[in-house]
């Protein structure tokens, strides 16, 4: 009984914290983008413009929640929920600190890979149900991007699994006691980060959205809080990928002096800010270029990295 209560409480606290942070990331992103573009960004509502998030949320609630008459109603309503749900489910296995995690699955890494790729259903279904050519094009792009980038996202992590000998995320963190995996697996780190950006559909890999070509891609027809769900899902995705990069390559909660959760949060925020920096600096590649990078360049590198890691592991054994 006590166990159940503890985990329920943990889940509630995690849900609340994550969604709150995801909402405030909108503010963080706008301020950071402004900083890098020599502007101020939102700085009027409240201290440092922090209340802009509340204002935006209230605005979203009061907007007309319109379902186009030509849309597939049930799917159209259901689609935005999937992305947020799938990403939130992945957080189940993220070890924030030795004692702050919901489930220490022994296939945690696989669970994360499975859940994070489920998020694409939201894009495909949302784009298809909108019954709009731009939405459908965005959905198609999202699906193909997910398929090609999911391949080496998994492959790049296998080196880490080889070195730590476990799919369990706590084991992976504990295996980095002496040195972080970014030291031994730098190629895998770069590949995973690239795939992670593609996974969250962030700039420069936001081709399913691509507002300069496809209006707003898969969510062209969405408004009000349904659009808000897509938005929150995207920001939750950023948090998730940053948290996973930290867990797998940067020693998770490990660090001197400060308590584990503080280390984890600090490292995660460094990567969240790096995501925003990427958005501020890089242009979007063309659709065919994106596919070309994925299959012709990154996939061979991922396989090569796996081969070399395997060879070294065999030599050591």
């Amino acid at each position: 009984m006590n166990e159940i209560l503890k985990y329920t409480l943990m889940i509630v606290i995690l849900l609340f914290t994550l969604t709150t942070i995801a909402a405030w990331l909108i503010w963080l992103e706008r301020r950071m983008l402004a900083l890098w573009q020599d502007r101020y960004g939102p700085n009027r509502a409240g201290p440092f413009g922090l209340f802009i998030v509340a204002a935006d949320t209230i605005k979203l609630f009061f907007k007309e929640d319109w379902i186009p008459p030509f849309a597939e109603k049930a799917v159209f309503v259901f689609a935005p929920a999937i992305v947020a749900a799938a990403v939130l489910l992945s957080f189940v296995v993220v070890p924030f600190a030795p004692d702050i995690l919901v489930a220490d699955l022994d296939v945690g890494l696989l669970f994360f890979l499975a859940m994070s790729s489920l998020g694409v259903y939201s894009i495909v279904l949302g784009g298809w149900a909108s019954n709009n050519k731009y939405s459908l094009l965005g959905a198609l792009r999202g699906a193909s991007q997910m398929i090609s980038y999911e391949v080496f996202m998994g492959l790049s992590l296998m080196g880490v699994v080889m070195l730590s000998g476990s799919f369990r995320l706590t084991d992976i963190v504990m295996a980095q006691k002496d040195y972080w995996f970014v030291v031994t697996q730098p190629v895998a780190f770069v590949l995973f980060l690239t795939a992670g950006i593609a996974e969250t559909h962030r700039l420069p890999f936001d081709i399913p959205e691509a507002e300069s070509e496809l209006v707003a891609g898969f969510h062209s027809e969405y408004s009000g809080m349904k659009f808000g769900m897509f938005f929150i899902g995207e920001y939750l995705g950023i948090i998730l990928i940053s948290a996973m990069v930290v867990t797998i390559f940067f020693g998770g909660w490990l660090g001197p002096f400060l308590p584990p959760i503080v280390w984890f949060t600090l490292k995660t925020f460094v990567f969240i800010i790096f995501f925003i920096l990427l958005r501020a600096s890089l242009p979007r590649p063309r659709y065919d270029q994106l596919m070309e990078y994925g299959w012709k360049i990154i996939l061979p590198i991922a396989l090569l990295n796996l081969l070399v890691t395997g060879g070294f592991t065999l030599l050591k054994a």
Partner: protein
Amino acid sequence: MISLLRSIGLIFLHMFRKRETIQYPEEKVVLHPRWRGRIVLTRDPDGGERCVGCYLCAAACPVDCISLQATEDENGRRYPAFFRINFSRCIFCGYCEEACPTYAIQLTPDFEMGEYNRQNLVYEKEDLLIDSQGKYPGYNYYKVAGLAAGVKGKGEGANEEPPVDIRSLIP
């Protein structure tokens, strides 16, 4: 690949640059003297209206936002009976100022003309007239005009000669 890293680095260095934004209501913009903003009607050094109601500004206006009606006082001095500028149409091009032969209509460096009611953007003569000579201090049209309109008698101007009786043969 190198170029991507370079652009990421360059954008990161922008963190230490000065921000370009002017925090408007607290921090004001520097407006130059010739900035074309709110239109005013100026007065001559003696406090009289400079406008002579010639309609040239209304004719020059590309959006037809100026309307006026000329009239005369008992001395024969022309002035506008009403002078109306619809600022919701005005494009602040400054053609009225260029067309004005008496330097009456002038554009000033002021853009803070926001109104809650659209009708309030229509300025009447009493809103437009200011107690200033604007950009041309010391200029009084009726002092240099050949016409007697209560300011000076005929031929009494600085660069004028007294009127000549053309029927007389005496030099």
